[in-house]
């Protein structure tokens, strides 16, 4: 299978999405997505780690032997996450307080080691970095989507505290969609996370099915009668 930027982009964002297809990183996903901004912050931190680790690992891939590759990769990823954590504590302090324990937990995010092992350690630097970027973007997409769902249903707001993450210019993003909303507490607690994730996964399967179905329809030759849609 030839590697192209196009294929990497499509895989990273949709076909091989970290959460929706590979089903990785579910723990931080569920814990952090009580608001859309938290999801976005976590996603950005994870993407930085993904790109940095992809860059470094693909740079040294010719020197690392199979026997010790896992300890080496984990060491590199842990060092990068620690640096990100220290930087956030120093310069993005409010967001750091909100995300709390989940920044160090990025080390345990299977997606990062997974991409390092299956892509970055086997491919050129430019492809690896792009793959890290696209996987990260796919992850951010899911995080923000689920975060927004849970926040809107659970607290009636959207992008609350956006100014903490993006700076004061983005305060306009903080909206209260339903004023005086009592709040559907379940959505902010863990069960709500599972529910939102379940619906998202089902939605993706449905969408994929529609896409394949419409592709099949286009290529079918209408002279032959026997088979109707098989999918």
């Amino acid at each position, binding site marked *: 299978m030839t590697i192209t930027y196009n294929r990497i982009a499509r895989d990273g964002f949709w076909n091989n999405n970290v959460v929706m297809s590979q089903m990785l990183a579910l723990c931080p996903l569920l814990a952090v997505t009580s608001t859309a901004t938290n999801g976005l912050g976590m996603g950005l931190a994870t993407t930085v780690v993904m790109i940095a680790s992809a860059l470094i690992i693909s740079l040294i891939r010719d020197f*690392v032997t199979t026997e010790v590759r896992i300890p080496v990769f984990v060491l590199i990823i842990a060092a990068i996450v620690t640096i990100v954590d220290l930087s956030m*504590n*120093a310069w993005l*302090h409010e967001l750091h307080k909100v995300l709390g324990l989940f920044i160090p937990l990025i080390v345990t995010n299977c997606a990062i080691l997974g991409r390092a092992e299956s892509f970055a350690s086997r*491919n050129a630097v430019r492809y690896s970095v792009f793959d890290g970027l696209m996987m990260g973007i796919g992850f951010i997409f899911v995080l923000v989507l689920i975060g927004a769902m849970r926040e809107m249903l659970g607290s009636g707001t959207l992008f609350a505290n956006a100014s903490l993450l993006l700076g004061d210019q983005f305060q306009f993003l903080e909206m209260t969609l339903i004023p005086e909303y009592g709040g559907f*507490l379940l959505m902010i607690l863990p069960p709500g996370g599972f529910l939102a994730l379940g619906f998202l996964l089902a939605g993706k399967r449905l969408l994929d099915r529609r896409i394949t179905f419409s592709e099949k329809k286009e290529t079918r030759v209408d002279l032959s009668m026997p088979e109707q849609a098989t999918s």
Partner: protein
Amino acid sequence: MSTVREPSYRKRIGYHAGLLWAMAAICSAALVIAYKATDEDIKLRQREDMQATLQQVIPARLYDNDILSDKLDIPLDGHVMAGKAMITVYRASKHNKLTGFAYQVTGLGYAGPIEIMLGVDTSGRILGTRVISHSETPGLGDKIEIKKDDWIELFNGLSLGAPSTEKWKVKKDGGQFDQFTGATITPRAVIKAVRQGLEFFQQHRTELVHIDNKTSVQK
């Protein structure tokens, strides 16, 4: 890896070990650099956090000193509060006269310790309290947070004598404090911790107001 032919020296154990050693050394160096670069800023942020918390329990107009540097560590002897061995008291003063004290007390909540910052004036009357951290149930016990409810402001102006001891309880137990529907243990824990904080202040008041030749202001 991507190279098809691996040179034979790669298979030696020395190479594996050397590689790990080198990676460890490089990562350690990177971490030391990162630590040094961020250490000052992190300490600054922590001071800012503490300042912000203290300002919520002692109104800013009451002091003009650098409250974070005027602090005393008081050991808890026989007056153990949720296992704490020591309390750090920050002293506020205006024009070199003591006006208030802020310190952290711990309560035993439903799901773990509740950290409370307490601010009192020189006579032991509460200037303000804030819950700094807790693990209580969202939607039920978390009304002790100022963001969720004004309940914590009920303590303003109270002292050990007013109200009397029997009234320092939730309404359910015959006291004067509102409880939360479905969460009685949480407010009980906060009330108890605040009261213990006041008792601590009374016990150590002489120590606190007269150290370092600062004269106190009687109110």
